[in-house]
């Protein structure tokens, strides 16, 4: 049985990890079942819902579709890695502040995707946020408060950028 396992080394939430994984295991199963990181959720298992969204080399992907062996040599960030030493990540805090979380099951994926969008699109518009979150389903919130939370962060970063320009 061990012949089917492959050793991989990658960076997970800033720390190097080395482990053996079955060749056809998906990254989601590796995170949850082998590494005990259960923040990333399994829901549809086929890339339709986004609950399993993680960040690999700076880009978000559905971890249910990604082969664990393909993590080799890459940098993986999960919802557990988003937390800062001071507490919640600003995106997490904004979701809390805007009441964007109800049952919470989709939230790890939603927040990973929101963080990716904010990081890569300075001045993200509400419409761009809607398009960018198309791959994340939520059955509770109706998305309005999610978009409010994202929008609030855009405003803040715009202000910060403007303040930076004014100071220089």
């Amino acid at each position, binding site marked *: *049985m061990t*012949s*089917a396992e*492959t050793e991989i080394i990658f960076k997970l939430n800033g720390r190097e990890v080395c482990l053996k994984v*079955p*060749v*056809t295991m*998906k990254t989601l199963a590796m995170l949850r079942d082998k590494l005990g990181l259960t923040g990333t959720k399994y829901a549809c*298992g*086929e*890339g*339709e819902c*986004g609950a399993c*969204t993680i960040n690999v080399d700076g*880009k*978000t*992907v*559905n971890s*249910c*579709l*990604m*082969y664990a*062996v*393909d993590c*080799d040599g890459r940098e993986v960030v999960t919802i557990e890695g988003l937390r800062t030493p001071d507490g919640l990540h600003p995106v997490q805090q904004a979701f809390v502040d805007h009441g964007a979380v109800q049952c919470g099951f989709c939230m790890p994926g939603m927040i990973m*995707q929101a963080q*990716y*969008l904010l990081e890569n699109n300075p001045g993200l518009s509400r419409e761009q946020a809607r*398009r*960018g979150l*198309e*791959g*994340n389903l939520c059955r509770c919130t109706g998305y309005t408060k999610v978009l409010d939370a994202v929008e609030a962060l855009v405003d803040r970063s715009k202000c910060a950028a403007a303040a930076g320009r004014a100071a220089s």
Partner: protein
Amino acid sequence: MSETMIAYLAARRLDEALQVMADGDATVLCGGTDLAPQTESGSRQYKAKLLNIRRIEGLGSIEAKGDEIRIGATTTVAAVRRSAMLAEIAPVLVEAAEHFASEQIRNAASVGGNLCNASPAGDMIPPLLVLGASVELACWQGGAVRMRRIPLERFFVGPGKTVMLAQELLTAVVFDRPAANFIARFRKSGPRPALEISAVSLALGARAAGGRLSDVRVAMGSVAPTPLRARHVEAALEGKSLDVATIAAAVAAAGQDAKPIDDVRASAWYRGHLVRVFLEEVLNDVRGN
């Protein structure tokens, strides 16, 4: 093949990958967005080896060499969407990438994978067909890399089936730089704009001059076992003045090209209707410009 016995290989060089494939017993992995659900559901079986091609050097870029545009097989759909060069040269491809699945899937899914999956609904296919694209297939033969090219319209033979041999790897899709007066349009449909497997898709490409279209290519998706060139529609448009009568004739001809079926996503009647609506819309749009 028992999943517990599959050997894994992540190639760095093309020749290395092709030698692994030479016995025809390797399953190719790139983004995994089709392979994972297909193998999980059991609709597809793994071969003895799982070959990851994502790290192969030289397969992941979009380049213009002279008048030829080349999109490497492992280029992600997200990279197509972001490509300033394609936005300039072939905006129809960027438009198709724009509404391809979701951001997370676009970040993983490869252009080569979308072609090799050979779905009648593959979103990158109709735009590439109207660009007159060909696919480049490589294999290991007689101790060397051998390449052949196949026009994309002859690549597909049925749902999930292509002319590619088990020993072959699709390395790139290539097309000639479109003429300055080339125009193209793409439309797809489904109940929501994202994560939708097209109920119908349609692409138009042609040279437009003096109110007439020439070198007309029309491609349709999800109306037959493979994406197809709509030859009757093309003939109804070729060289004609793009007026109300020509558009009506082209729309009427669509029924001779589209042979849709009923399935879970749409009825044959609806697909037949929608493909005519799309055709009429894109032709009116071109005429209006």
